[in-house]
């Protein structure tokens, strides 16, 4: 999962990115490509800066982050608990699996109208919809993580006198952790996707509305600026998840550094 960066590789990446950006800047300024559709990188940065200064950015970013995190945390926790239960007991699995199999293939955004009809058009329906989007990757990955634990480990732990508490804490939880964490990462990505989509469809604030507003007024520089912010948000999530992985799954990390 983690890429290895060599010094040479970093140099090549930096140089090429710089080349692309500067030629974009050059072409855009001299009218070789339309500066309306492709505003120059400096213009985009300026827009981000002015967004930041007049407070637009913080209002919308906070709104997005808030509903994203609420939804994500709810969906993740429910998904985790159900995933553990379903992975461990075939009774639970047989009971709940049909529902998951039926609802999982539906793009969660398609459920939004139904959710809004039930929960109203306020914040609750948005958060529920985001929670639903992060629930599925979480429950599926946690479940398969628990199911893949070799039976031997249970037997070994029991032979040393482990009770259910220790079996959970010392076997199920750590053994399923790599899979669970990839569930968390997918859930985080899914909730970002769905938050933006929901905001585009129906919200008064958030980065998604900013995108839609820029399109309606044809301020494409603002559109680009918002996209850059969303991209940064997504990458910082991925970065955080990598850190979390190396903290919670140290035994896999250590091996990697050896190879």
């Amino acid at each position, binding site marked *: 999962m983690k890429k290895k960066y060599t010094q040479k590789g970093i140099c090549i990446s930096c140089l090429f990115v710089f080349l692309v950006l500067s030629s974009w800047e050059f072409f855009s300024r001299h009218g070789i490509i339309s500066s309306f559709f492709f505003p120059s990188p400096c213009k985009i940065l300026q827009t981000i800066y002015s967004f930041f200064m007049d407070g637009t950015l913080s209002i919308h970013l906070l709104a997005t982050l808030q509903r994203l995190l609420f939804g994500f945390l709810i969906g993740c926790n429910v998904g985790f608990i159900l995933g553990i239960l379903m992975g461990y007991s075939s009774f639970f699995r047989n009971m709940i699996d049909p529902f998951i199999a039926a609802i999982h293939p539906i793009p969660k955004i398609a459920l939004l109208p139904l959710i809004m009809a039930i929960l109203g058009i306020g914040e609750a329906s948005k958060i529920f919809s985001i929670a639903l989007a992060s629930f599925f990757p979480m429950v599926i990955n946690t479940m398969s993580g628990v199911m893949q634990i070799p039976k031997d480990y249970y037997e070994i732990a029991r032979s040393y006198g482990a009770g259910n508490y220790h079996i959970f804490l010392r076997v199920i939880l750590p053994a399923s952790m790599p899979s669970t964490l990839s569930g968390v990462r997918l859930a985080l990505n899914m909730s970002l996707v769905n938050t933006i989509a929901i905001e585009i469809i129906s919200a008064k604030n958030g980065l998604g509305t900013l995108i839609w507003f820029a399109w309606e007024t044809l301020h494409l520089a603002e559109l680009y600026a918002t996209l850059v912010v969303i991209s940064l948000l997504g990458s910082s999530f991925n970065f955080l998840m990598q850190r979390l992985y190396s903290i919670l799954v140290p035994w896999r990390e*250590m091996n990697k550094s050896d190879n």
Partner: protein
Amino acid sequence: MCIDIFNNILAETKITNMLITCNKISKSYKAKDKELLCLQDISFQLQSQEFLSIVGPNGCGKTTILKIIDGILCPTSGEIMYNMPEKKTLTSMVFQNHGLFPWLTVLENVAFGLEMQGVNKKERSERAMSFLKQISLDSFARYFPDQLSLGMRQQVAILRALATDPYVLLMDEPFASVDAQIKRILQARLLYIWERYQKSVIYVTHDIEEAIFLSDKILVMSSRPGKILCEISIPLERPRQLSGEHLKTIAEIKFHIWKLIEKEVTRSCEI
């Protein structure tokens, strides 16, 4: 104080001297509609501080015997008598392919049994560390099992079982996966641990020579359903040498055991 208690235990066990008595143990599994008989009328006794090996062809139920003694499995019929003073851990098992938890460090793995006994964190770390020092593995305490060599992992697995301070160590082909040279060293270390900590050992292996080299007594088993073909005492004094007179005796016994199970092994190959 501790030594006193230990001597008392020793005195008590000396009287009867039999730690474990297995009486006509049978075990069968349900496979589809058939009852599959795995073990048939297994009877033997384990003395205090005895090194007992069980040899036999693959699939004869050697591991099942260990699991039954450890209490992981229940016998279908027959009984086991444990003649040991009550203690948290009577037997500890060393599993095939080490069975260490990859997500725990070496230290945490060795301390695992102690944690299950409810020993607090500080004390169990110290005790686990002192065991690791015994075989100079203390510098690897913070490593994870996957970072160690196969031989090291097996030793850590033995320490994990030893750390719970059982009367009997149950070992399921512990050195089957390491190469022949390292096996020699590990055997020597096992014998050192066995003498130093005065444990009894039941050692399952398919390597006849290894069994003769290590054991006081060998149970030879038939292929499925597993029965005990015979019980052989090894008369060699310790420490045993792989040279001179010892080597000759070992070769003789090996030939004798091989003659006994040759038919069985052939049969298990044909199935």
